[in-house]
């Protein structure tokens, strides 16, 4: 129970950080800490709990971003469906699997967001989405490596 509380508190902190510090007037690549946090949590928490977090993020981003309603939630749903399907074929606890699953999720998120914003909102954000994907995947891998080498024993990673 305590780990859920801790995770949720971290989620709220990242959420507020993203809202008040990451957003700006300039349309430019940003570090999406909340997405990275969600993908990292996805491996260690049950699907229903992750669904609730996805819904909260979807509501906040759909409300504030100004993109047509539902784009953010749909992108997240597609992303985590991909992730869920991949965990059927790959091991959740394996380090390499986590990198593959996480990077695929990251890619599918930015790709689906790009396609939806292009088709529904008619906004050409290609370069920014690619940069976003690149920056966030690097950061995700960084976090995973850090987690792997620092907390390897604690998390019982399969090397």
């Amino acid at each position: 129970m305590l780990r859920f509380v801790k995770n949720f508190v971290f989620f709220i902190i990242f959420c507020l950080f993203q809202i008040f510090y990451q957003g700006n007037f300039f349309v430019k690549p940003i570090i999406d800490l909340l997405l990275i946090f969600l993908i990292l949590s996805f491996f260690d928490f049950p699907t229903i709990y992750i669904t609730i977090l996805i819904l909260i993020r979807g509501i906040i981003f759909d409300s504030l971003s100004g993109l047509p309603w539902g784009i953010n939630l749909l992108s997240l749903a597609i992303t985590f469906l991909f992730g869920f399907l991949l965990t059927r074929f790959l091991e959740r606890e394996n380090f390499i699997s986590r990198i593959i699953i996480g990077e695929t999720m990251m890619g599918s998120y930015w790709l689906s967001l790009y396609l939806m914003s292009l088709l529904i909102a008619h906004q050409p954000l290609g370069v920014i989405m690619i940069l976003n994907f690149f920056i966030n995947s690097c950061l995700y891998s960084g976090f995973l490596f850090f987690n792997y080498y620092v907390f390897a024993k604690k998390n019982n990673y399969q090397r």
Partner: protein
Amino acid sequence: MMKKNKLVWNFLSGVIIIIALFLIFKIYFLVQNPLQENTIIILGNENQTILFKTFNRLNSWFNDFFHFNSLRNQVQNLKEENNNLLEQLVELKNLQEENSSLKEAFNVKQTAKWHLVPAQIIMIDPSGLTGNFWINQGQNNGLKPGMNVVLANQVLIGTLKECFSNYCRGESIFAPQTRIGVKDVANNFLAIIEKDNQGRFILKLVPREANIQPNDLLITSTENNNFVPGLLVAKVKSLIPSESSLQEYLVEPLFISNQLFSVFVITNSVF
């Protein structure tokens, strides 16, 4: 038999998940307005942003901690500057009086045309993809979509797109596909500012004979459908070399800050 049962069970689970997802999305789209409005109220209410204020304090503290050497130098410089400024203050007082009388004579008519409602920017698009922002005034203060949002020094920020009773969503000039008709203050040439795919602002359709210089100021022209004429938009940065008959310039928007701040809404600017 066991294998068959497992297959049926997996199939049924899949169907249930799909139905559940469908229902969630259906409800999500049905309750769009209350969800959106409540999210803005929860996150944007000034009394409830204690976390935001804590963040700000922490941010300032860490900033001071990591830059104490430069802060010390700055204090020293400021002291010297303060002395110089005090000397200049006396001279400036006379100039100010002269300036204000001239302003009254020439500019009052221009500024009096606009009815301004002060507002505060409370939130900005967290995804960084749209250049959207939220202000803490809404329909109750007479704000409507289409009104222009400016800084105190008449620098254009953007327009309002959506208004609730106490909040409004605006779109800044940094939004993708922004296109603004502008006029060069120095020599009155008309041109268009467009945002390219790399996020740069380009001044387009400038004839070769236009004598545009770096740092020339550009204001909104009368050709715009969305913007009040005469608002400051950008300054010219450099010429983009090309062989075409029309020149292109790289321009720098005058509104560059990404901090939350006070703005004004021009209420008689609905198009």
